[in-house]
């Protein structure tokens, strides 16, 4: 280390990295750290009041949950009272959540969901922030369904496309096409496809069922909206993951397949003993990437449904942006971002742990 050369070369190296690294610091690292800081304050987008440190209160406001078992209203004989529409009449939630000294822990909460129990009673789960909870469950559902289907479908396409067939490059291009189109453009296009009046999907389903199919307003119906966004998201991202699988497939030496052929391996045996083990690292990468992308669900919701109808397509990132900018509650938005970060981090760590090299 007596030679001065490496040091000065180091300096030049750092200097060359400066433009890129300063941009990364400014637009990634600083906002990342700021989000942590804001989530412990009452920071607003624009506010005349000074920012105050509020401890964990943003998080307890988000995550506070409570539960309650309630009896229906009963008549003199103990039979439940029915409403005009035939539903059982329960006491109103606000009698528990508004200034009721017996239920102080439920103060200000709203019903999140309920589970019916025997004897017409029901178990109600309440949340301080029912909207956040809805966004959370939607996001988890989105991840749980989109990640495996997208990864599996992408693998299937990659296996098909990895064959030496004439014209196979055309198919590679076609499958990859949705990836290079902006998600916003794709979302707008699919809004037309899902349209309830004269959308392409209804037209096709109607044609295939000889007109028997009743048109559905796919994005306007709370029971189909999230599923529709999932289907479109799977379609849009599958090409990208197909390419990653493909690159993984091509790292498996041809001689391993030839050795299997010499041993008389059948197709599924080749997959089980040669292909799949050879794709292990790729599988880890893909699951981590897909999970992260799915957790970041935003553009589709923003363009197609804006969280509706009746909050059926709320997502964590969408809520975070809504609060931060539309409600000017930067602190609340940051808190959601921090929760999301911790979830993605822990899932990645779990995935890494489960797929570790056991030897």
């Amino acid at each position, binding site marked *: 280390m007596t030679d001065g050369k490496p040091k000065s070369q180091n300096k030049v190296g750092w200097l060359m990295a400066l433009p890129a690294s300063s941009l990364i610091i400014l637009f990634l690292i600083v906002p990342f750290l700021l989000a942590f800081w804001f989530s412990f304050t009452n920071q607003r987008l624009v506010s005349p009041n000074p920012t105050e440190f509020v401890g964990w209160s943003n998080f307890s406001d988000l995550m506070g949950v409570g539960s309650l078992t309630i009896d229906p209203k009963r008549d003199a004989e103990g039979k439940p009272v029915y409403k005009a529409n035939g539903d059982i009449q329960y006491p109103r939630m606000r009698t528990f959540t508004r200034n009721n000294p017996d239920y102080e822990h439920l103060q200000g909460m709203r019903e999140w969901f309920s589970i019916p129990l025997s004897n017409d009673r029901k178990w109600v789960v309440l949340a301080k922030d029912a909207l956040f909870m809805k966004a959370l469950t939607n996001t988890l559902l989105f991840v749980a369904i989109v990640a495996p289907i997208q990864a599996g479908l992408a693998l299937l396409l990659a296996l098909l496309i990895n064959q030496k067939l004439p014209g196979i490059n055309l198919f590679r291009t076609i499958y990859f096409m949705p990836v290079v189109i902006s998600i916003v453009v794709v979302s707008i296009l699919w809004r037309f496809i899902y349209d309830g009046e004269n959308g392409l999907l209804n037209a096709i389903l109607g044609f295939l069922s000889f007109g028997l199919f009743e048109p559905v307003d796919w994005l306007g119906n709370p029971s189909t909206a999230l599923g529709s966004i999932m289907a479109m998201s799977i379609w849009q991202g599958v090409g990208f993951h197909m390419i990653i699988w493909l690159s993984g497939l091509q790292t498996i*030496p041809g*001689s*391993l397949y*030839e*050795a*299997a*052929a*010499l*041993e*008389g*391996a*059948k197709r599924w*045996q080749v997959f089980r*003993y*040669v292909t799949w*083990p*050879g794709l*292990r690292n790729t599988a880890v990468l893909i699951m981590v990437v897909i999970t992260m992308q799915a957790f970041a669900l935003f553009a589709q919701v923003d363009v197609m449904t804006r969280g509706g109808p009746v909050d059926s397509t709320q997502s964590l990132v969408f809520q975070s942006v809504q609060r931060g900018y539309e409600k000017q509650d930067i602190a609340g938005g940051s808190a959601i971002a921090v929760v999301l970060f911790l979830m993605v981090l822990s899932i990645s760590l779990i995935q890494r742990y489960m797929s570790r090299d056991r*030897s």
Partner: protein
Amino acid sequence: MSTVKFNAVNKTYGKVTVVPGLNLEIPEGSFTVLVGPSGCGKSTVLRMIAGLESVSSGQITIGGEDVTHKEPADRGIAMVFQSYALYPHMTVEENIGFGLTLKKTPKAEKARIVKEASEILQLDALLKRKPKDLSGGQRQRVAIGRAIVRNPKVFLFDEPLSNLDASLRGQMRVEIAELHKKIGATMVYVTHDQVEAMTMADQIVALRAGEIEQVGTPMDLYNTPANPFVAGFIGSPKMNLIEGEFAKRHGCEVYGIRAEHIDLDEQQGEWQGVLSYAENLGSDTISHVMVEGMGSLTVRSEGSVFIKPGQTVYLTPRKELVHKFSGDKRI
């Protein structure tokens, strides 16, 4: 019954002919080495026997049975690849027993067969290891073990030793030759290394651009090479091949004399030359001598030779060991 026969086998990739009309018989139980420079089509020939490469026209038979269009697994062959082709996620045991696993052989029987093979190859102690924890030579043995377990009529080897260092290569050469003696199956071995061919084969097939240049025992090819290509390819150091005026004066187009068949003397001899440099190997010395009208000649003499570069030396060929070629043929 495991004679391998090629009847007018042709292999083309598009418009390129790699193997034009090959006729060859590999006798049952022989150790046949296909030797030739890189790209001459050795692997292609071997892979056609294995069924990993299709045959464009012609017929291949093994033990009299036409296998031209059979699946690789149905030909009664086993192959050892240059890259070993071991499964990285499987242990040695699982790699050797892979074919048995595919056939759902009962565990106890599988263990017995794997154990047998691993004893032949001295792999007993390594059965639980993964390929990445093995040396090159050990990996090679695992690959051979996997081949043995198939109990094939014909073993195919594609440059199995080219990834090993020189000393290990020498050792594995002996081991493979011993294996052949022990199990007696037909073995077809591809290499570009003439030393491997000379030391292991009982039949050498010298290939150039997909065509057979000569078939015979190692000594046949050494003593009576059929053409200048074989003459230059077999033997180390390479045979001196002299063309032009000099050859014409001796009534041929190419005049060949092996380095070990030239005597070197400081005082007298047939050809006068100047020593360019000498490689002293201890047991013998390879001298490079510049002779006017002939070019640079290689001479091999026993023991050490202490002559300085630039000094004048005299060379004398042993007349009965001269090879003469005309029209690419021995005369």
